[in-house]
Structures are given as C-alpha cells and as structure tokens.
C-alpha cells in the first residue's frame, strides 16, 4: 500500500511499500490503482511494460556519488546554462553582421545597376564601346551577387545551428512540463471493456474513447497519435497477459506518459 503522496518536480508521485517513489501517471498508465498498488505489483508491470524499441532509454547500473553543497550544484548547472546562452548570443551577433553585409551588398548592386543603366543610355547616344563599363561595372554586380548568395547561405547555416541549440534547450522545458497534456487527454475504458481485458477475452470489439480538447495543430497531431495507438491495438487480438502488457506498454511508451488510462463511468 502506498504510504503517502508527494509532489516532486511538478510530478505527482507516490511512495510504494518498499520506499520507492513512482509517478502517479505511470501507475495509471500501467492500469494499476495508485491507492492500492504494491511495490511488487508495480515491479511486475514495469518489468513487462518497458518497450526498448520505442525510444532510447537511459539505464543506471551502479553509481558513484558524492554530497556537495547545494550552491555548488546550482553553480555547476548555471555554468552549463551560461555556456548555451553564450553560444546563442554569439551566433546572433554573427547573423546580425551578415545581415548588415547583405544590406550593404544589395545597396552596392542597386548603385552599380543604376550606373550601368546611365552609362548604357549615354553610350547609345555617343555610340562608344562599352568595354570599360563592362569591365568596371558589369562584372562588379556579378561578384556582389555571389557575395550576397554566400552571406545568405552562411546565415542559413547559423540559423540551423541556433535551432539545434534551441531545440536542445526546449527539450528541458518539455521534460519539465510533461504533466500538462495529461489534463487534456484521457483514454477512457468502459468498465465492461476493461473487464473484458482482465478476463483474458479477445478484444476485437474493444472500443476505447479518446476524450480530447485539442485545437491547436500540435494537439490535433497528438490526438491522432493516440487514435493510431488505439487502432493498432484494435487490429490485434490480445487475449493473454502478455498481450495486455503489450497494450499498456504501447499506450505508456508511445504517449510518453502523457496519457492516463482510466476506467470510465460513462455509458456509451
């Protein structure tokens, strides 16, 4: 029996009877009741439900540890943060400089074109050779255009590096806010349907209802992902324990814990 519920890093977790702390959403996703789950039950489920094919998992085998002052820990974390910020700000500076060069080059091209036009008009009247102008003016815009293409290419390259760094930072934000989608998406099971799974029956008539309030593009994509998982389940008859675990496994790993599997009190 869980002894208490506490909040850790914005994730509600429960302490199991062996002292281990586990996220409530994980317990729910495994089809276990957070109010009554035992460490053994949880371990049995988790052991079966780990899907190593779905995403890369980091495992810890043994560790070397030390106690440090919290200030030391925070300073170490800040150093990593500062490094990333420095990188982005340096890239921004480089992009700014390249943008200035582009503006200058574009001005030069415009001037050169205007000069060329003027000289052409003069030559039409005077009927003199264009050699000098071709050499000094006509070639110059070509070089400037090449320079412009180079600057643009360079900016694109820097923007890509910036995006990579930003994505890496966003990963942290996503991890910290992973609880949020749980409020919006819940996969409900009708009691009879759940009973059907528990009784090891075929699940071909299984019908899960996805309740969602999705209206951004991202949310719609997420809901579709959930439907896809459910459909994948419907396509296969899972009659045994392995099958059920596989289903829970699919739900929990594909949705990355964003979804709670609950028994619905609603009637169809």
């Amino acid at each position, binding site marked *: 029996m869980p002894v208490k519920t506490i909040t850790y*890093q914005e*994730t509600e977790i429960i302490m199991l009877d062996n002292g*281990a*702390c*586990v*996220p409530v959403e*994980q317990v729910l996703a495994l089809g276990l009741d957070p109010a009554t789950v035992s460490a053994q039950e949880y*371990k049995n489920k*988790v*052991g079966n439900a*780990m899907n*190593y094919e779905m995403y*890369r*998992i*980091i*495992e*810890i*085998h*043994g*560790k*070397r*540890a*030390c*106690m*440090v*002052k*919290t*200030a*030391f*820990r*925070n*300073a*170490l*974390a*800040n*150093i*990593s*943060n*500062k*490094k*990333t910020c420095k990188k982005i700000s340096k890239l921004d500076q480089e992009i700014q400089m390249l943008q200035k060069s582009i503006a200058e080059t574009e001005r030069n091209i415009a001037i050169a074109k205007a000069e060329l036009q003027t000289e052409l008009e003069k030559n039409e009247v005077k009927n003199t050779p264009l050699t000098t102008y071709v050499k000094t003016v006509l070639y110059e815009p070509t070089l400037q255009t090449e320079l412009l293409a180079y600057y643009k290419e360079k900016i694109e390259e820097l923007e890509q590096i910036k995006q990579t760094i930003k994505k*890496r930072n966003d*990963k*942290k934000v996503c*991890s*910290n806010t992973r609880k949020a989608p749980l409020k919006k998406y819940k996969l409900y099971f009708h009691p009879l349907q759940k009973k059907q799974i528990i009784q090891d029956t075929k699940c071909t008539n299984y019908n899960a209802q996805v309740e969602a309030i999705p209206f951004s593009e991202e949310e719609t994509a997420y809901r579709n992902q959930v439907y896809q998982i459910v459909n994948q389940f419907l396509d296969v008859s899972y009659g045994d324990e392995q099958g059920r675990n596989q289903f829970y496994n699919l739900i929990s790993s594909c949705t990355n814990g964003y979804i709670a599997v609950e028994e619905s009190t609603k009637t169809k």
Partner: protein
Amino acid sequence: MIIGEKSILDVIDVDGLEQQVEVLLLFEAENKQYVVYTKDEKKENDLVMLYASLVKEQEGRIVFENISDEEWELVKQKMREVMHKEGGNP
C-alpha cells in the same frame, strides 16, 4: 557525444523504476563520455547528492555504468576545474 549537453533525462534504475535526473556536467576523456547528474536528493546541512557515471551505448540504449576509483578522481578533478575556470565558485 552519446548524449547531448545539459538536459533533464528520464532514466530507469536497476529495479526498473523510471525517474528524472538533471545532467550537470558532461565531458569526454580518453574517448569515453562521463556524466555528473543529480536527482536533487537533499540532505541535512544544505547538501545535495551528485552521481557520476560512464556513459555507454548498448544495443540502441544508453547506459550509465559504474566508474573505477581512477575515473572517479578524474570526474572530481573535472568538476573542480570547470568551477574554477568558469568562475562558478559558490
């Protein structure tokens, strides 16, 4: 680098329990990658637990493995070095 720079990672311990850890330091030495991370386990006297491991990739999974005494010295030295160099001395 097997794993990227600082981030929050979901890890599974030897008992199969999933938890989140914060990576504080990643560095490479002799073609190996080492990580210093924390689960923010606070103790009395304003102390917090930091862990150090060797990062390896095995069959598509990332594994944090135990390190030797020599490697542990190397990690501690690296932490001191980084703090000193970056002016992070608390």
